[in-house]
């Protein structure tokens, strides 16, 4: 038996596979396909304080081995989430992590303050990196100063551990990750989607109504892996890796370069059972090689 548990310090997970925000709905959608109790964690779709209408369609465009999206964080808001969704998730054994969004610093803090009252939530993932909200993909995660300032405020407000979700749309990911760490974040997760676009040559229109969107899926995995490697090499706090993970072997690549856990995103769309399948594949890989603890894989990249 392989011990699949991983310790983030502030949270112990039964396995390293977490369902990524924005790809797993509010969790309940996947009940017919996944025993939610068996996941390492569930990060629910990003929540603003108020319900949000989201972007006009088309919101999705498929590209080679990738998916472009510009959903615009349509959602039900914190109040409806706590009243209607959380009660149905309360018996799920996997920790429920809420992805926290805001148009302004005040809104981020209002969301955290509201959720602080609910002890069914295990941690917050601070979404400072969605590319589809402001013009040209602007978000706080694009520079170390705004990241540091927002993380510091959020950490002060949060009564639960804070994971800061980083954007890959930067020149120097390490400096932004360090800023999150210095701001007091308990962990970082990366990468959010890559700012991207696609064009229909017949109509000469962008394939997304929002013109630009975020790219995810297997196409982004090598970029994600490089960034996780760079960040994990420099930070003391745990790193949660994501970007195009479709299989257990993909997940193991992220653990080897230093991620303590992984998030599975776009794969959930392709295969609604992907998250648990990946847990099984990690276990099988370790068992076949007599690796007793999956933690023994973390940060074991051999560069010489």
């Amino acid at each position, binding site marked *: 038996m392989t011990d699949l548990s991983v310790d983030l310090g502030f949270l112990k997970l039964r396995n390293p596979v977490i369902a990524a925000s*924005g*790809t*797993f*709905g509010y969790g309940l*959608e*996947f009940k*017919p*396909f996944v025993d939610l109790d068996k996941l390492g964690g569930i990060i629910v*779709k990003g929540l603003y304080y108020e319900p949000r*209408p*989201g972007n*006009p*369609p*088309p*919101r*999705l*465009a*498929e590209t*080679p*081995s*990738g*998916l472009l*999206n510009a*959903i615009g964080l*349509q959602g039900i808001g914190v109040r409806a989430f706590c009243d209607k969704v959380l009660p149905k998730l309360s018996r799920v054994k996997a920790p429920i992590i809420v992805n926290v969004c805001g148009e302004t610093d005040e809104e981020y803090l209002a969301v955290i303050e509201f959720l602080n009252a609910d002890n069914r939530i295990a941690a917050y993932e601070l979404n400072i990196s969605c590319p589809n909200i402001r013009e040209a993909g602007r978000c706080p995660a694009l520079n170390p100063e705004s990241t540091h300032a927002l993380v510091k405020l959020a950490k002060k407000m949060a009564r639960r551990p804070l994971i800061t979700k980083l954007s890959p749309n930067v020149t120097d990911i390490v400096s932004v990750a360090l800023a999150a760490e210095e701001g007091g974040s308990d962990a970082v997760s990366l990468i959010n989607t890559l700012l991207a676009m696609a064009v229909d040559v017949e109509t000469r229109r962008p394939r997304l109504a929002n013109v630009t969107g975020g790219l995810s*899926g*297997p196409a982004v995995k090598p970029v994600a892996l490089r960034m996780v490697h760079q960040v994990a090499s420099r930070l003391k706090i745990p790193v949660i890796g994501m970007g195009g993970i*479709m299989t257990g072997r993909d997940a193991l690549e992220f653990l080897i370069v230093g991620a303590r856990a992984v998030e599975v995103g*776009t794969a*959930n*769309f*392709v*295969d*609604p*059972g992907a998250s648990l399948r990946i847990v099984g594949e990690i276990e099988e890989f370790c068992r076949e090689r007599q690796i007793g603890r999956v933690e023994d894989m973390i940060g074991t990249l051999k560069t010489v």
Partner: protein
Amino acid sequence: MLKDPCALIVGKETWGDFCLLTLHSPKIARGAAPGQFLMVRVNDQPYPLLRRPFSIHDRQKNRLMIFFSKAGAGTALLAARNPGEALDIVGPLGKGFRLGGRKTAGRTAFLVGGGRGIAPMSFLARELRARGVRTRIFYGGRTESHLPLLPGLVEQESDIFVSTDDGSLGYRGFICPMLERELARWLAVPRRGRASAARRPEIFACGPEAMMKGVAEVAARYRVRAQFSLESVMGCGMGACWGCVKKIKRAGTDEWVKICEEGPVFKDTEIVWEES
């Protein structure tokens, strides 16, 4: 809602760009209702990444059928699959057509299918007739060769109206003027007998957006109710990605509503048609 990673292709018919696949998938077939859909992986490669949504064309005991046309890379790959191979499918998904309760017997339904939008109509017609509803099918396409399901429909249905844009078969022109003509005729005939038989027909439509918008206008002019099966690019088909939204009237405001979860079938009174 189930995943069947091994739905065996047991039948295939093709006509030019159109394709009809029959799949053996007992559990999903058992739960299927007209207007619901499947999410199908067209191959087991990383590209195309996403599943493709297909309306359930028909169900026969343990079998499901999908009818589609080659519209892009994904559907072209699916059309190249052959009997004996297995497909990974998820379904049945979404809410299908509302078939009505006990008071539907004796009523009349006009089923309107444009192009590949004919897909759910024979399944729907059969289920409606099982509830005592009289069905009349309108099938339109660009030209005669774009109506491949017509011979099969003729075997099952007694009341079919056909239109082609070029007049190569049936009514010459779009399906909407033909529908309007027949609706006006139906309404002009005085009807006696059971109250339900005298009630105005209901329209069930599926096809290109412009056609459905036209059908909605006809329905509004003649004050008949209508249901529409909408189409969209979909990421997951099960409500998780929020990618497939259309504008729908909800409690006084218009909202972007996921058609995979709350549709794909919506009532005429709910849909906000896009300006063309």
